[in-house]
């Protein structure tokens, strides 16, 4: 029996930080706000580490009961926490990467007037995310699930005076609601059929059930509904549209929420529910297909984007697709492995992009960058490492996790592998394109024309703003730590080490299947590595040695290029098919029809009617005493006449 780990402290510490900064931050100094935010977030990381050390080796899951919540008949849901090796990985990634991004944000957000608000939201996010990963039942998980959505909404719309930011936040929230709807119905099915939402209780009941090979059944339905939820949160087709818009938020937010942690919640949830998915092959196939298509589709959009953060956003969607591809072929630990390495290198890429944006005074268009290598060498170094990692170049982190996924995908169905490998090529192409456009060639901004907030900040400090400049140490240190993790973080995957580690979570049969990688795996590894290198080389040719080529290619491709550049017009399509009919239907039928004609008119007519009737009846109340007396006499006469008539009739 493991000792009491006091897991509840891990989410509650950031909540306390959020509360303190939320209530008192406005009147406190920046230093005080910083101290509160960093201390509470750091304490959560420290306590998570302590809990991890005491939990070690952790092959037996640990449960911790905090308080009763819902008790209704046989159904019950409690505030309780669950720690096994899967939530251990998630907990450490969330607190670790989260803490680094907190540190980075101190530098990035220092001049922002909403400084305390930012850290309040950021800590609040940590609370909900940790609740999500540490929950021991689906309902507590759902609290975290909705909570991170809220924090995401607040942070995307952080600069809410900007119209685009406000509507991007709204879009993220609404699109997520669609997914949450599916998730919720999945939970209702679980309650209906298993009478519980507790992970252990549900999975113990699912365990002996037969695999639904013949056709779709209950487990398939639950699996697909859970996947709908995951599609919303983890930005998969068809609900991915909110993520690129979410880049309106401050860059540390994009790093923390929209790359490293929150968007991976769907992958975590699917992996957590692996017992259900393993018995529902159709649902698994759906997951795999969605993941594969998303990976490829988003990667192609990434090639033509010019906004540095948009490229990374589509890249995130694409990498999440990889994770779902892994889950869909049953390789849950490979998915979680990629989740972890992705948290490192994509967090790093976003923070690096933030450093670049900071350096050039708020500019995000890569066409106005270039040649920054010599101005901001540390940022360049870390970004380069992250690019190598995401492209899957040996021996950086992404190589190990991506190859693990591709190998598992090949075993399941070579088509997945083919698309995955092509996507790896495209990934490498667009990432090196980003790197070359930003850091190589000539500095293309004649002057910094859009005066962002950061720029003004540096004017006050007396820096020249025509020269890009390196970020302060408080931003560089997290970059360097993440760069180190992106370099060596994949090494835990050697000899399937990571899979063995997660073996107790995903079951012994799965661990056994993971063994036996031979020459074929090496061959595939070589092919995908070649693809990745090819992508890098082509990007070098296009964007460094012959920079006039991309325009010519774009011209010759014509409409295809325009389609990619405009993100396949998916937003326009959704606007036409879903949003506009909804808006029009709401306006014409619900607003002008139901609300105005039915509800308003009923209320108004009731009021008018009362007035009309009163207008007539009020003549009775003349104030003339004798007429009152007359009414009384008449009434009495009628009553007497009635009683007499009754008497006669009887």
């Amino acid at each position, binding site marked *: 029996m493991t000792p009491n780990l006091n897991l509840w402290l891990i989410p509650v510490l950031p909540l306390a930080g959020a509360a303190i900064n939320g209530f008192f931050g406005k009147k406190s100094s920046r230093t005080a706000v910083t101290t509160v935010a960093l201390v509470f977030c750091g304490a959560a990381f420290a306590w998570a580490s302590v809990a991890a050390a005491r939990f070690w080796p952790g092959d037996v899951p640990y449960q911790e009961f905090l308080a009763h919540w819902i008790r209704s008949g046989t159904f019950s849901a409690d505030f309780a926490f669950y720690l096994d090796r899967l939530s251990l990985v998630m907990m450490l990634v969330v607190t670790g990467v989260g803490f680094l991004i907190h540190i980075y944000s101190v530098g990035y957000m220092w001049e922002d007037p909403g400084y305390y608000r930012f850290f309040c939201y950021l800590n609040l996010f940590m609370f909900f995310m940790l609740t999500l990963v540490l929950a021991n039942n689906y309902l507590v998980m759902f609290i975290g699930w909705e909570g991170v959505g809220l924090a995401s909404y607040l942070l995307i719309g952080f600069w809410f005076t900007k119209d685009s930011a406000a509507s991007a936040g709204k879009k993220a929230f609404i699109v997520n609601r669609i997914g949450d709807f599916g998730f919720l119905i999945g939970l209702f099915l679980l309650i209906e059929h298993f009478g519980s939402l507790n992970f252990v209780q549900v999975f113990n009941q699912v365990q002996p059930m037969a695999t639904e090979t013949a056709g779709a059944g209950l487990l398939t339905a639950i699996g697909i509904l859970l996947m709908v939820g995951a599609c919303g949160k983890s930005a998969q087709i068809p609900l991915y549209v909110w993520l690129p818009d979410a880049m309106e938020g401050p860059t540390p937010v994009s790093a923390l929420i929209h790359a490293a942690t929150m968007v991976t919640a769907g992958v975590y949830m699917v992996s957590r529910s692996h017992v259900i998915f393993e018995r529902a092959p159709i649902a698994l196939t759906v997951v795999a297909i969605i993941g594969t298509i998303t990976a490829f589709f988003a990667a192609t959009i990434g090639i033509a984007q010019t906004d540095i953060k948009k490229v990374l956003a589509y890249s995130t969607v694409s990498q999440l697709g990889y994770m779902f591809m892994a889950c869909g072929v049953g390789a849950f630990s490979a998915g979680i492995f990629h989740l972890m390495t992705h948290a490192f290198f994509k967090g790093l890429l976003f923070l690096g992009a933030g450093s670049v944006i900071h350096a050039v005074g708020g500019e995000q268009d890569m066409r106005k960058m270039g040649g920054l290598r010599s101005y901001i060498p540390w940022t360049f170094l870390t970004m380069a490492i992250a690019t190598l990692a995401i492209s899957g170049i040996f021996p950086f982190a992404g190589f190990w996790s991506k190859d693990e996924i591709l190998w598992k995908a090949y075993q399941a169905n070579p088509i997945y592998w083919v698309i995955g490998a092509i996507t790896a090529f495209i990934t490498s192409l667009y990432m090196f394109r980003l790197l070359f456009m930003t850091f190589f060639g000539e500095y293309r901004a004649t002057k910094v024309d859009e005066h962002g907030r950061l720029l003004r900040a540096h004017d006050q400090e007396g820096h020249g703003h025509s020269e890009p400049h390196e970020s302060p140490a408080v931003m560089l240190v997290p970059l360097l730590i993440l760069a180190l993790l992106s370099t060596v973080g994949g090494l835990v995957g050697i000899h399937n080490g990571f899979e063995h580690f997660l073996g107790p979570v995903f079951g012994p049969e799965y661990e056994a299947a993971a063994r036996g990688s031979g020459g074929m795996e090496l061959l595939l590894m070589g092919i995908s590595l070649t693809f990745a290198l090819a992508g890098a080389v082509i990007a070098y040719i296009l964007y460094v040695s012959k920079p006039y080529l991309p325009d010519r290619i774009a011209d010759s491709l014509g409409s295809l290029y325009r389609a990619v550049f405009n993100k396949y017009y998916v937003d326009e399509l959704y606007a036409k098919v879903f949003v506009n009919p909804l808006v029009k239907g709401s306006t014409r039928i619900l607003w002008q029809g139901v609300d105005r004609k039915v509800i308003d008119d009923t209320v108004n007519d009731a009021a008018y009617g009362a007035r009309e009737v009163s207008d007539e009846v*009020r003549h009775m*109340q003349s*104030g003339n005493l004798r007429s009152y007396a007359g009414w009384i006499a008449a009434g009495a006469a009628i009553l007497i006449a009635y009683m007499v008539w009754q008497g006669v009739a009887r």
Partner: protein
Amino acid sequence: MVPLSYYLVLSAILFACGVTGFLIKRNIITIFMSIELMLNGVNLSFVAFAAQWHALSGQVFVFFVMVVAAAEAAVGLAVIIAIYRARETLNVDQVNLLKL
């Protein structure tokens, strides 16, 4: 022995006269007297029933009614005098400050 119905008919006639006077007269003193007439019409039926059923309670009621009527007359006449002093009229139609 006069039958009960005679008393009741007379009582009803007295009451109806009172009501009519109350409704059609304008002079406030006449109205006041009409009220007394109604009360006494009712009193008559009370005592008639009391005699019929040999029960004293009807007569007790009548005493109460007479006491209340006396008290009412005292208060009412005081009010009438007050009104007359204030408005120099006893016509109820001209005492219409509260009228719509």
